């Protein structure tokens, strides 16, 4: 039980920080009924500060070291981790009713796991598969109409919402086939430590890819907490809508008002 809880906690934390959010709303105005409220802002800011300190002491140095590895190794690692993540994406494609995308991702997983040697090489992309889009249970809940709830900053894991956090629990409750096989499955090839390694590597890989942009953002923000919150909520909104376009940003009423003033 203790082992399960540890894994569940780490899984939630890592998946939250990697996915950078789950929400459908990003307008924090009190006038907007569809807003994501920062109900626990005081506590969130304290947790955010704690995470920043921890990041500076532990995660960022590791990510910087990781970045010194040859790009071929980093790309291969990133590809393999994406391949593993499709085990969560595929059931979520199905749960969201996107059967076509589920089929594509099953094909992608089969090709990359075999021809691509456990996903190290993204062969599917080279033969013309569409760009891979991760899905998670937080996104599925949003598609089903579940509201985002309050904005949260989780210790170690970072920004989230009540809905995203609940979605992350699904991974440890049977929603992540890789977890089920490695931890609950009785086999000699996959172990809990391998599962944990994959999760930790996912976090390090994400952090390494965003070192410059996060440093830059922090340096030029007058309220870093608010900037991260805004970016997280925008990111989740885009992922839930599976849209590459910024149409909602484009048709922003505030711009229209300015044009008429």
């Amino acid at each position, binding site marked *: 039980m203790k082992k399960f809880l540890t894994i569940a906690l780490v899984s939630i934390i890592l998946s939250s920080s990697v996915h950078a959010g789950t929400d459908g709303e990003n307008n924090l*105005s009190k006038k907007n009924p569809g807003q994501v409220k920062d109900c626990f802002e005081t506590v969130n800011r304290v947790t955010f500060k704690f995470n920043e300190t921890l990041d500076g002491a532990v995660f960022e140095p590791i990510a910087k070291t990781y970045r010194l590895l040859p790009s071929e190794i980093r790309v291969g690692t990133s590809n393999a981790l994406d391949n593993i993540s499709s085990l969560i994406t595929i059931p979520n494609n199905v749960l969201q009713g996107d059967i076509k995308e589920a089929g594509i991702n099953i094909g992608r997983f089969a090709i990359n796991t075999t021809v691509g040697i456990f996903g190290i090489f993204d062969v599917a992309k080279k033969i013309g598969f569409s760009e891979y889009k991760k899905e998670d249970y937080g996104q599925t809940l949003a598609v089903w109409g579940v509201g985002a709830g309050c904005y949260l900053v989780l210790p170690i894991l970072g920004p989230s919402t009540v809905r995203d956090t609940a979605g992350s629990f699904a991974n440890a409750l049977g929603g992540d086939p890789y977890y089920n096989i490695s931890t609950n499955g009785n086999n000699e090839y996959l172990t809990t430590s391998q599962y944990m390694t994959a999760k930790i590597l996912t976090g390090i890989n994400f952090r390494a890819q965003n070192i410059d942009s996060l440093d830059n953002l922090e340096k030029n923000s*007058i309220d870093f907490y608010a*900037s991260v919150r*805004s970016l997280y909520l925008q990111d989740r909104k885009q992922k839930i809508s599976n849209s590459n376009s*910024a149409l909602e*940003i*484009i048709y922003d009423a505030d*711009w229209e008002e*300015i*044009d008429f003033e």
Partner: protein
Amino acid sequence: MKKFLTFTTFLIIIIFNISKVYSIEADIFVQSTVNRASEALNNKFSKEEKINKLKDIARETVDIKGIGFYTLGAYRKNINDYQIKKYNTLFEQYFLKSFASRLAEYSNPEIEVTSKKKLDQNYTMVSSILVATEQRPKVKIDWRVYTKNLENPLIRDLIIEGLSLVRTQKEEFSSIIQSNNGDINALFFILEDFIK
């Protein structure tokens, strides 16, 4: 009357030709701006020179005043003329410092404009790709260009991988004002501190 008609026709032709000559396509405008910024970020310049060049480019190509108003959100309706004037001045300095400082960290970024889409009479969205390097994957950047005046298009937003920079800025400012009970002077104080 005949003379008047000839003159009018001549005038219309002249005006039409002038507007044709000086109107700039949004994608060409963005690519040209990007090329200028890349040149400014060339390593032959010192960091200070880079920053000054980037600020000049921003003054010419970005609608700083418009972004400032947008960023203030609904609060702009509740402040007086003096505060508006003060805000405009502070915002321009803040924007230029922040913008130049963000970009000056990069050296020779390679951006390729891929397409454009006219949204309405006011806006054109230009799509581009920041080419991948060994340190990071490729990045999709959309440019929201205000094209009401075709002779003088202006950038109003950068949307990086779907994340709007000016919206983030707006929510950052809003957070500061809200946490100070709606007092815009708190924002002024923080902006002044940043500009120093």
